[in-house]
């Protein structure tokens, strides 16, 4: 009961904030609502007993990436953007994409309703999930993980080089 209420509150919060993210004119406000969305997601992870994911979500997305977003917004003068309507050019494309996505979702729900629901996991089964994630990443999927790391490293070096050239 409590968990259900919790879920709906958090989900509503996430969706409403997400709407605010795209409708606010002030980019700083948008960032704040994006943070709320991400925070709600993190709390949902907690409810799913995926504490590691939740913590990583907070540290990386909220503590890291969004700070950089804010940083950039504050450095760049965005007064002009604020005065314009938010959906001036990509309105149609975005609307189309949203419609397609909606159709897709409905289709999945419609054709998937026959599949049986997943069995409820016992509350203790997932307890050491940090270790499980570690094992998954560093043993079962070591190669893809390392490839991803190298890719990121290359991207980082590339970014530094491009910034330096100027």
């Amino acid at each position, binding site marked *: 009961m409590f968990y259900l209420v919790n879920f709906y509150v958090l989900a509503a919060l996430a969706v409403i904030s997400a709407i605010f993210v795209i409708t606010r004119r*002030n980019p*700083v*406000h948008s960032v*704040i609502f994006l*943070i709320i969305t991400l925070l709600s997601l993190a709390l949902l992870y907690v409810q799913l007993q995926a*504490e*590691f994911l*939740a*913590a*990583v979500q*907070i*540290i990386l997305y*909220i*503590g*890291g990436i969004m*700070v*950089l977003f*804010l*940083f950039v917004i*504050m*450095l760049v003068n965005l007064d002009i953007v604020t005065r314009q309507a938010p959906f001036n050019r990509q309105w149609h494309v975005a609307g189309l994409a949203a419609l397609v996505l909606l159709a897709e979702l409905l289709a999945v729900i419609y054709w998937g309703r026959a599949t049986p629901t997943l069995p409820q996991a016992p509350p203790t089964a997932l*307890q*050491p999930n*940090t270790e499980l994630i570690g094992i998954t990443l560093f043993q079962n999927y070591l190669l893809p993980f390392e490839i991803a790391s190298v890719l990121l490293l290359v991207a980082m070096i590339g970014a530094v080089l491009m910034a330096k050239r100027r």
Partner: protein
Amino acid sequence: MTNPFDILAPYLPDVLEPFLLPLLQIGVVFLGLSLIVAYIVYAERKILAHMQVRLGPMRVGPHGLLQPIADGLKLLLKEDIIPRGADSFIFWLAPVLSVMAAFTGFALIPFADNFIVTDVNVGLLFVVGISSLGIYGIILGGWSSNSHYPLLGALRSAAQLVSYEVALGFALVSALLLSGTLSMRGIVEAQIAHGVWFVFVQPVAFFILFVAAIAETNRNPFDLPEAESELVAGFHTEYSGFRFSLYFLGEYAAMVLVSSIAVTLFLGGWTRPFQSWAWLDSLKYMPVALFAFAAYWCVVHERRMPRAPEWRWQRLMLLGLGGGAAVLAVGFAALPPVLNAIQGVFWFLIKVCGFLYGFIWFRGTFPRYRFDQLMRLGWHYMIPVAIANTLFCGVGLVLWRSLGWNFAGSLWIGTLLTLLVALLLAGQTESPEPTLAGQGD
């Protein structure tokens, strides 16, 4: 040991039980912390004053003991100013965020083996994550003030915090490697199991954590975001009254939080020093001794105060404090169960206070870094050393686990290697020589 609050459990209705007990603990932590923070400010003023050949607060209460309360009241009653052109919603939100981030972290700090609000299996990650949210208080406060000094202060602060968080993270990793768990309680228990505080096997990581903690809390010598001589008061230049006091509270709470993290990770948390040495068991009477000393001090100073009638209240208050301390001392001595129950919290707070004293001491001693120097120190020195330390810590662990070497010895090999790297890095900068070209008539 069981949670002391559990004795209440049978008396609570079942539906509320999972919520009420944590709430109670949160209340205790929050109120206790607010008081502690207020008195850290007082302690800072007093300690700095004595370092600087002056007296510090002396007027409100005996030796200015009521000064924090008077300050708090004054700040509450002050006019609340929102500058014209400020983004009032964010202006309101920012200090709240700052305080929230600092206080939420305490939910995961094990003050004692029997006193922890909640122990999550990713506790350390959560503490780091939540405390990193404090940066929003600074950035948003600086931005929403719609003024240049705060904005510059906020930008500096953001860059500084993001940079030093990297070094801080690496310093934490070595403690993780040693304990093999992310749970804060688990880390302390690992130190008990090894019979050694991690600071003695990972001194470099502890040092990095200490420096990064100072940078994270914007304290001297890394107090650039609020560098008085350059940016007036940095990000909170435009704040006044209660909002300002929220920032103040958040800042000092953050200091306590990073100290608590450091104590938990490297200084054995709630354990008393040298817990494995049984012959030092008499150290458990330390609280008794401390309160007895406090009582003695109060009495001595009461005797030194002038006998004039206008000092009567001050004298009475000091005597009251002394009496309270004496009662506590006698109580602890007479009731061994109580003495045992407070051991954990007592030692934890003592260590945190030692850490905080370091912060204050630094402030009294050092000039301020320049921004680029701060960044260079962070990126060119702290982070490479932290990475090397993590690496060599892993090497040491392999030596210990796979080859069966001595635990402390193998880790010290790693530490020595790290120090070598640090020396190499340090060798690239020239050493200062105070020389004049010469003198003569």
